[in-house]
């Protein structure tokens, strides 16, 4: 095994790319959960975003249109969940699971003839001088635009949730839908919007996966990323800033184990491939055992069905 082949700078750069899809999906789900809705369909929305974004990018030749279309399609499928849970009052856990299964099936149906194609290139930005600086240049100034977008989005969501009236209303709906309803807020409409936003973010994350991270289309390519995003929301205790830490932690584990596999560590690669999932479980356990923090931040109406009787 040759550990010296693993360069720390390359590791950090690829870590950020590996974390971005999960970060995007987690941010979307964070907003959804803050509105009091538990959408377990992240994996399904992500893979729909991955396949739709890929098809759009290959057809038009523009990765930007790919990202846009991925986000739109993610939001579109999230509406199935939204209508079922908000208007038809279906169980959120079951409907979310259904969305994941439906999304995985629909994605492989849509992507059938797109395997083995390369998407149009989506290159890193290059700022003269800055990007050429040793170490810092590549870590801070050498990424593709979507990575910067995901970081800006984190800040934007933090600002929206904590500093704006809209964010306050959204949180009120998530804490107590009955009280929010009594105050005259449109609980269902606000939740529909939150779900659509979550779908768009998941779709965007999926598109990043198929257009930049891999970059190819393959059946089942999300491989649990959507579920890890759900775990990160718990890890982040519903705070956007902490979602970055969570996502980068998992990105780090993923990239490190891939590098160890490539460096020829003397254990079966299958065991190394387990590590991101095991890390997720460990983190979930650590976070959950701190009951005080959990109950302070978890939206009180999370997963509960709202029916306006009057």
């Amino acid at each position, binding site marked *: 095994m040759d550990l010296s082949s693993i360069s720390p700078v390359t590791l950090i750069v690829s870590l950020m790319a590996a974390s971005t899809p999960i970060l995007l999906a987690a941010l979307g789900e964070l907003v959804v959960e803050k509105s009091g809705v538990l959408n377990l369909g992240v994996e399904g929305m992500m893979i729909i975003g991955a396949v739709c974004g890929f098809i759009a990018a290959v057809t038009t030749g523009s990765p930007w249109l790919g990202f846009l279309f991925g986000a739109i399609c993610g939001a579109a499928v999230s509406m199935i969940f939204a209508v079922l849970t908000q208007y*038809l009052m279906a169980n959120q856990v079951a409907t979310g699971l259904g969305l994941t299964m439906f999304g995985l099936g629909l994605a492989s*149906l849509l992507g059938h003839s797109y395997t083995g194609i390369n998407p149009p290139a989506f290159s890193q930005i290059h700022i003269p001088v800055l990007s050429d600086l040793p170490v810092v240049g590549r870590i801070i100034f050498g990424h593709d635009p979507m990575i910067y977008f995901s970081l800006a989005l984190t800040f934007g969501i933090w600002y929206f949730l904590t500093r704006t009236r809209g964010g306050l209303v959204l949180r009120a709906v998530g804490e107590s839908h009955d009280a929010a309803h009594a105050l005259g807020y449109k609980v269902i409409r606000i939740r529909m919007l939150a779900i659509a936003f979550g779908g768009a973010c998941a779709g965007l994350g999926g598109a990043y996966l198929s257009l930049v991270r891999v970059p190819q289309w393959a059946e089942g390519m999300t491989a649990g990323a959507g579920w*890890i995003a759900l775990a990160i929301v*718990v890890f982040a205790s519903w705070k956007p800033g902490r979602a970055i830490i969570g996502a980068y932690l998992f990105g780090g584990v993923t990239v490190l184990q891939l590098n160890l596999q490539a460096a020829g560590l003397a254990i079966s690669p299958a065991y190394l491939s387990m590590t991101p999932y*095991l890390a997720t*479980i460990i983190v979930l356990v650590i976070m959950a055992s701190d009951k005080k923090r959990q109950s302070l931040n978890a939206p009180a109406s999370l997963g509960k069905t709202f029916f306006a009787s009057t």
Partner: protein
Amino acid sequence: MLRLEARPEPSRAMVILTPIIAVVATMIAGGILFAILGNNPFTAIRIIFWDPLFNDMVASYTRPQLLVKAAPLILMAIGLSFGFRANVWNIGAEGQFIMGAVIGGGTALALYPLESPLVFPLIIIMGGLGGFLWAMIPAILKIRFNANEILVSLMLVYVAAQFLAAMVTGPMKSPVGMGFPVSRNFNEYQSAFNAELLSNTGLHFGVLVMMAVVVVGYIFLTRHIFGFQIRVSGQSARASKFAGVNPHTTVALCLGISGALAGLAGLFEVTGPAGKLSTNFPLGYGFTAIIVAFLGRLHPVGILLAGLLMALTYIGGELAQFQMSIPAAAIQVFQGMLLFFLLGVDILVNFRLRRDTKSKEAH
């Protein structure tokens, strides 16, 4: 304008009717899907739902398949339904299915070539134990640390799949498999092979176990204190405490039972229909079982019927794939739609549609 009005009591007729409405709606929506894919929707629906049972050309092969495919689905769905009733969400049945197959199958591989009537009972126990222990991980983490069992059990599916991969490329790799990542074939090992008991019926030992579980499950749910306890904990965690239900016991029992049944399903599958351990062994039955559980209204008898129906879509789907080259994924979409329609029409059980004539003054 239509509006929803809460029923004073859940409609019993709708409990039975809604799954049928959902199936019909799925056939219509599925027909549209097949038409978009460029196939004749009526032919496709006939191939999926009619031909496997009644077309003489293929039925001799497909009819026995019905029991083979339905057995693991029903076995797992009944286990899951207990938890779902009690709000214990084990969605990692796929992982427990894999672990049952790996532990049970692995035991058989370790004993090879010992021929003894004790081998089969032993590997059945090991298979059930494998699934049980795998499900105990989320159970213990939930009880001890309050970790979300949905995410933990789901993460363990991926871990189990990787464990299977490690096993079939390492210790369980067949010495006569020419280097492929597969285990020895179980049909070469008389004592461990889960053979068809009556030829051309698809009836293997797992099917018998499945049938017994349907009966026992029914008795447990409707006639036993355990059934009452899980129903009350699902409806109100607070009320269940007053009724003397220990929530930790409920979590452990629900996850343990569903895990053991999923492990058994995996063991019967790998030693019978699948025939060997390989990375292609997991087919997503653990996830389909979730649909089966809901389609069967979390009731053993309903699950029996739902499992047979879902098995039919698998077999019919394969037929449609073969005869009309409808992609396999279309069937997955079809199954997903079925769950959506079911959850959607479910509202008719507790609500009824009323025309809003008197506008707001009703309240």
